[in-house]
């Protein structure tokens, strides 16, 4: 047709883009994609080759026997050290301390697990931070001070210290 030049050009561009996409796609798809499902199969081996960062509390034990003993006999026994601190790989390597371990002495750490929430199981110990702190007629500052909880609870053996409050 005589007057359809523009249409052919547009069609050509679309064709070009289409084949271009198919071509580019060929290079963008990772080699092992789809080998065992809709994902890059090689990623499994990459993950397998990684060194674990966490070592569980057993890894802390050899250097922190005291804290370990204190924790496992208390109510925080189900909580791993690395949950409140940081992975061991950032702190100790080959039986030597390589960097400081964060301690996180902040009520926000406790609130993470103990703030009263609807979605927590009923039996789990949880408190409304403000109301709990105000218990026994104490006044609570507008912003809860960082160390608020440690006055009466120890992080490792959290059962309330006797005689307070």
């Amino acid at each position: 047709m005589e007057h359809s030049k523009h249409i052919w050009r547009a069609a050509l561009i679309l064709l070009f883009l289409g084949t271009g996409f198919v071509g580019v796609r060929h290079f963008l798809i990772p080699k092992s994609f789809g080998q065992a499902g809709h994902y890059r199969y090689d990623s499994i081996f990459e993950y397998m080759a990684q060194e674990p960062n966490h070592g569980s509390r057993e890894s802390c034990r050899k250097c922190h026997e005291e804290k370990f003993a204190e924790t496992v006999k208390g109510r925080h026994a189900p909580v791993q050290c690395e949950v409140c601190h940081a992975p061991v790989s950032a702190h100790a390597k080959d039986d030597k301390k390589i960097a400081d371990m964060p301690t996180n002495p902040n009520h926000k750490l406790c609130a993470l697990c103990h703030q009263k929430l609807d979605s927590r199981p009923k039996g789990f110990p949880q408190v409304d931070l403000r109301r709990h702190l105000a218990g026994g007629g104490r006044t609570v500052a507008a912003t809860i001070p960082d160390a608020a909880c440690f006055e009466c609870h120890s992080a490792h053996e959290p059962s309330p210290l006797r005689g307070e409050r």
Partner: protein
Amino acid sequence: MEGSGVGFSYPNDLHIAWGVMIVLYPYVTGLVAGSFVVGSLYHVFGRQELKPISRLSLVASLGFLIFAPVPLLFHLGQPMRCFNIMITPNFSSAMAAFGVIYAVYFIIVLLEIWLVFRKDIVMNARQNRGILRWFYASLALWTYDVSDESRKLDHKIVVVLAAIGIPAACVLHGYVGFMFGSVKANPYWSTPLMPVIFLTSAITSGIAMMVVLYQILMKFGGRTIEPDCVQSLCKWLWLFAILAVTLELLEIVCIAYERSEEWVVIGTLLSGKLAFSFIGIQLVFGSLIPIILLGIVVLMRPYLTNPLRNTIGFVAALFLLVQVLAMRWNVVIGGQLFSKSLMGFREAYQPGLFEKEGLGVALLIFLASFVFMAIFNRFLPMYEKKENGNGTGDGAKTGFTERREAAKSEEARG
């Protein structure tokens, strides 16, 4: 039921993960589909009275289309990964189908706009110099053939494209409804009606957007608002608003009448937590009032003066735009407000103004579509000056940039 008894929520079932961005996404997508469908009433079904919005509807559709996926990208923590669904499409995933549907629809709209505006592009290419000329010439693909034969061919293709575009638009938005309708864990969403509800409300919002945009553009461009066009838009708007609202109610009424266990929480939700946005905004302010107003426009046509009709139509359309937004909100947020245990509610959802997925960003994304339309209009005016009636074959004949005017007279001389 009300309040917050401990223990009715499953663990990890506390937060509302789909926020404003996921409300905005179906809204903008709806406007895409809606404005395209109105445009097709002219392009395919030959409703001549809708000619004045034939170009506007296409450009608006493109503008919204470009920004429709942006809320999703903001919502995703890793927006650059969006290309993965294009490169390695997973056809068993409904969400991944979006890549294909979006791409196909984008090409259709782009081609259609190109064909409709081709004569303008060519004329601009002829009349400009330097970089602008190069710009327009490349848009024209370096063929300046605007003979009647070529325009006829263009027109034929436009009709075909628009005809393919209607089902494509329906798929595009029906798919969004499908996203929600197929979440079987959520009894408020999980209904086959969902795609249809989304589709009708999408078309409603699209027509309403045309009523509003058209009138605003005409007012600020100093042109006359075609009464027939507004009347016809109001008629269609009335029809689709009634359809949309009926379907929306039908879904609720079905659940309510069945009185199955989910009604305990859904009923409490609609009459409690969502009372304002569902009963107040979606049903009364957004549905009842505009349907009455549009009914007046349609049924009492002989008694209305043009300005009165335009105003009533404008107000009703604005209300309906709010209604559809409220409906998206009630579905997306409302559907997440109750716990999956169906025993109570999650924490309330209040979007911030300045957060990453907050109201500010949502507003910016929404406005971006209009900025796009304005820029488009700067380079390829949607309306030409009335006097130059010989303009293009498709659009309304009014235009306003001086550059264009000068170009016209130059053409007349040459």
